[in-house]
């Protein structure tokens, strides 16, 4: 059995998923691990469904997480979480942002946004953490820091030094947004 850990990030184009996966990868590299990260640019950027795969451990081969071997589904939107649940392994963990973004068919009134998704997710995967990302981001002072709030919530589930997260944020977040993002990270870390 390899020691590789698999984190699948999911959400909607424009939610800051790529930056979150960059920070996560950087943290794991600083922790001395082999890291691979994978995502599709292009069409998906314009409001489409987006995923990013992050894998780390002693030695990582495939940058795509083998199907059914996701350890943590780290998701920025409810509907997108459900889409990728089948890729989790048994007893996998879910962190989900408590947010609904209407896809086109819902926005056009042609289809309803599915109900009770949080319950559905927790039923299938008892190890589910729901985070009110937007509320905390607003508390931090900027709605665009949802991704950092969520990273904070993820950070307590991973066995990595707190200092490395702060170092990575310092390195990767633009200076003028750093303070707000550090605050957002703390709020996420203490959310649950």
């Amino acid at each position, binding site marked *: 059995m390899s020691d590789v850990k698999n984190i699948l990030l999911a959400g*909607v*184009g424009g939610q800051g998923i790529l930056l979150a996966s960059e920070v996560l*990868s*950087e943290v794991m*590299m600083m922790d001395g691990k*082999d*890291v*691979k*990260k*994978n*995502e*599709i*640019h*292009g*069409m*998906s*950027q*314009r*409001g*489409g*469904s987006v995923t990013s795969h992050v894998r780390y451990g002693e030695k*990582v*081969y*495939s*940058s*795509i997480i*083998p*199907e*059914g071997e996701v350890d943590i589904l780290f998701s920025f939107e409810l*509907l*997108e979480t*459900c*889409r*990728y*649940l*089948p*890729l989790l392994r048994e007893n996998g963990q879910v962190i989900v942002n408590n947010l609904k973004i*209407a*896809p*086109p*068919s*819902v*926005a*056009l*009134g042609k*289809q*309803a*946004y*599915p109900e009770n998704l949080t319950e559905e997710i927790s039923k299938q995967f008892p190890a589910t953490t729901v985070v009110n990302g937007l509320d905390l981001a607003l508390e931090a002072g900027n*709605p665009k820091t949802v991704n950092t709030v969520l990273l904070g919530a993820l950070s307590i589930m991973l066995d990595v030094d707190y200092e490395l997260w702060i170092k990575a944020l310092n390195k990767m977040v633009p200076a003028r947004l750093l303070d707000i993002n550090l605050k957002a990270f703390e709020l996420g870390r203490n959310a649950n």
Partner: protein
Amino acid sequence: MQKVILSGNEAIARGAYEAGVLVASAYPGTPSTEILENTTQYKEIDASWAPNEKVALEVGIGSCFGGARSLVTMKHVGVNVAADPLFTLSYTGVRGGLVLVVADDPELHSSQNEQDSRNYAKFSKVPMFEPADSQEALEFTKLGFDASEQFDTPIFLRSTTRISHSKSIVTLGDRKQDLPAPSLERNAAKLVMLPGNARKRHYDVEQRLLDMEDWACNQSFNRIEKGTGKVGVITAGVSYQYVKEVMPDADVLKIGLVYPLPKQMIRDFAANYETLYVVEELDPFIEEQVKAMGINVIGKEKISICGELTPGRLQQGLFDKAAPTEDNSPELPPRPPNMCPGCPHRGVFMELNRAKAYVTGDIGCYTLGFLPPLSAMDTCVCMGASIGNATGISKVLSEEDQRKVVAVIGDSTFLHTGINGLMDMVYNQSASTVIILDNRITAMTGRQENPTSGYMLNDLETYRIDMEQLCKVVGVKHVKILDPYDIKLTRKTIREEMARTETSVIITTRPCMLVPRDNMDKRMPLYVEHDKCTGCKACLRLGCPAITWDEENKKSNIDKIICVGCKVCQQTCGFDAFLECE
């Protein structure tokens, strides 16, 4: 040595820098685009966008003939456009090294076909390296330049979406310093490909491939990794990673130079196994050559030619073990991409739909005009095809049906290969209408400058093509300039030009919403006054992502955070319900 996380594309740019490259030229195309964008961080490299791939390669050929190491990059279908210079470059060979990076897109994440560029290596007799991660992307780029000069040949570096856009840890090196300085040097026997010269060069090309095949048998980029010795696998590129994941015990021959193949090495390896697999994405490129050597292998009967490989798909193919997939059930509404709020293309498609036009489409953000609710595109073949397609279909239609045909094309695509179609349209007297959606940028691929931008890749100002004059000198008598945010005018102009019995062109004038440089003035977002909204849903025909239907109240709503205040929706509302926020 410094270690960093780089994408395959960033690593190729870094490799070019370390190899001492002086000139880089490209036309954007997913998943190759970021390579050229990343070369701009190295001031030693003269990097520029060409209007199409053929020109990009010709620029690279020129600088290589001048003695400079030159990098040219494109997506897989770009090679179709650049194929003409490529096949003869194979005969001339190089002076400074030339590496042509081609990025394939198995699974068609953002492409119109799934062609396997390895076939171009064999067809054009140009050797091809294929890296399996970012470290190899960097190393093979450098190796490519050395091999290019050593064997007097252009070199292909083949990437795929999962190599270009995956990140992994890379060790950086220094830039090569001792390269000869560029200069003028005449060598007509080698560079003037008239029949007499080219005939002789063809023998050199064939000998070169034989020499490289021998050489490749003793190079570390082709290597054997021992497992338990029971089964053997021949693989290359990203497929290697999936093999290591799914068959950790197999003996693996990992090929770094996929053309020409190291035949003796393959023979020696194959002799050890009763069960031998070839694992590769897309075409049976290695498999067919190995079988032609009389070696029995298992390949495409187990692994699909269509789509990309994944660890799960490989396992499913080889061991019949079903792999889970994402949930595509109808209860979970799909989330396709959409044009941005305020995109200047949107209103044009709404009106084309309303006019029941038959739209020969083209490739760009505007191809999303195919999706509902705009649903106004009937064909889309390749870049530039819309105009020729309109001319062709008009030839065989009744006069009434001819008037329905409208070609729609973006500015970058028009200058790429659309302009030739327009010359033909005028020259051969077609009555079709062409709409050029001029948003002054190559938006689809992430907003690259082009000759309509007025800026170059390095952000310096330059001449901006006058599209109106360009169409006029080609001979179009009726050229209309249109503000696509004016919906009444858009409707009127489209209808008038469709009715016309001569070639006519409409050019829209609004820039892409995402280009801060020429963005429209900051405007207030709109909101829907619910007292006035009758719930008629007319505004929903626009498909703006900022507008959502509120099923409970039977009214429309606007998301103020993403609305940019283009006011196109306001013009679709018959009840004045769309008001500006204070």
